[in-house]
């Protein structure tokens, strides 16, 4: 038995038959077919070779000229992305969303007024986050005026005036607290823990014998002294500022 499981006689049969097949199957093509086909084959091969060369050279040319084209495409893509931002902001404004002030200013600078936006001075603070809007007061207004587009002298003066006003307020506020009229902190709840005074010991704002106003220069009109009546000191004992 052979390695593929066939008996020698079977192998002979197969070999004989495959030999017969080799002799029986091949068939010479007709002369007409050969005469017409061979020139066509050579012409086809020639044109295919030329086409392949052309395609290859075109591909290399395409690669060479591809760089600037892709750079141009990149520029166009970036320009489109940039153009989308104002369009999106304008869309938001049309939808009724309050657009941040810098964006609104940018639109104003090119003469476009966005719809559905708060106008006037309130407009200015619209972009700022809520909690700061009411508490910032004049100082921030002044700063904004200074930083604004038309940073004129008038705006600067206005800012300074607001700043001064703010300082005066602060002084009055302190005073009110000192005499216990401004009860911002509930009694018994000191802002600073006991024994941790802001000022070092012996340097209290209302240190005994150190009045803020020089002697004889009272801020209040005569007869309306800010000093508490006798027996009511400005700072309660043990409550230094």
């Amino acid at each position, binding site marked *: 038995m052979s390695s593929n499981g066939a008996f020698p*006689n079977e192998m002979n049969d197969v070999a004989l038959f495959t030999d017969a097949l080799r002799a029986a199957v091949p068939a*010479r*093509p007709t002369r007409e077919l050969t005469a017409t086909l061979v020139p066509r*084959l*050579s012409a*086809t091969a020639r044109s295919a070779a030329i086409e392949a060369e052309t395609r290859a050279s075109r591909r290399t040319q395409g690669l060479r000229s591809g760089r600037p084209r892709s750079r141009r495409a990149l520029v166009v893509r970036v320009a489109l992305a940039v153009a989308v931002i104002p369009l999106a902001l304008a869309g938001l404004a049309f939808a009724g969303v309050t657009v941040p002030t810098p964006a609104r200013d940018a639109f104003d600078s090119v003469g476009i007024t966005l719809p559905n936006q708060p106008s006037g001075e309130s407009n200015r603070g619209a972009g700022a986050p809520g909690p700061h809007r009411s508490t910032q007061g004049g100082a921030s207004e002044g700063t904004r005026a200074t930083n604004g587009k038309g940073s004129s002298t008038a705006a600067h003066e206005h800012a300074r005036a607001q700043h001064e006003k703010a300082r005066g307020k602060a002084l009055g506020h302190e005073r009110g607290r000192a005499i216990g009229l401004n009860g911002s902190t509930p009694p018994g709840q000191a802002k600073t823990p006991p024994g941790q005074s802001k000022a070092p010991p012996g340097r209290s704002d209302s240190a005994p014998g150190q009045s803020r106003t020089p002697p004889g220069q009272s801020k209040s009109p005569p007869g309306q002294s800010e000093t508490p009546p006798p027996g009511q000191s400005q700072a309660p004992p043990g409550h230094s500022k």
Partner: protein
Amino acid sequence: MSGERFGRLLAAAKEGDERAWEGIFSELAPVVLGYLRASGAPDPDDVLGETFLQVARDIHRFEGPEEGFRAWVFTLAHHRLIDARRRAARRPVELSADPPEPGERADDAAEAALARIGLERVQRALADLSDDQRAVLLLRFVGDMSIEDVAKAVGKRPGAVKQLQRRGLAALKRHLPREEVTR
């Protein structure tokens, strides 16, 4: 054909040299045409022309030895045969009524084997095989292709090709009574 000679022939054929194409055609056309006829191609001459035209179109992409070229041509012939069959719808295998002129490749041993078995019997045995068995046997023994190349050409795994070959040969043997073959 030596490897060097085949390399020169291939390079010339790629350039479109007519003599090179004559050489290639005279070498391969008889076996390819025989394969197409034996496979029952609807119009073998037409399919042969289509096959060689595709060879001419794609020869600039081919790189390899003569055996690879032969296997490639047979693979293209097999694919064109399938296309032709699809076009002509399926019909029973009908070998050409005209007896084909024997090709030049048949050596003495093959001629002797054919003389002993008889052409008619071979044709009848082939006609009784299934399409797949016939394709595998013809590509293996007429196209001189390896199992792997045949598997690629017919789109099957090598194991399946071996199986088809074994079954095909077994079916052929049934057409060849032992006393006639071994006589």
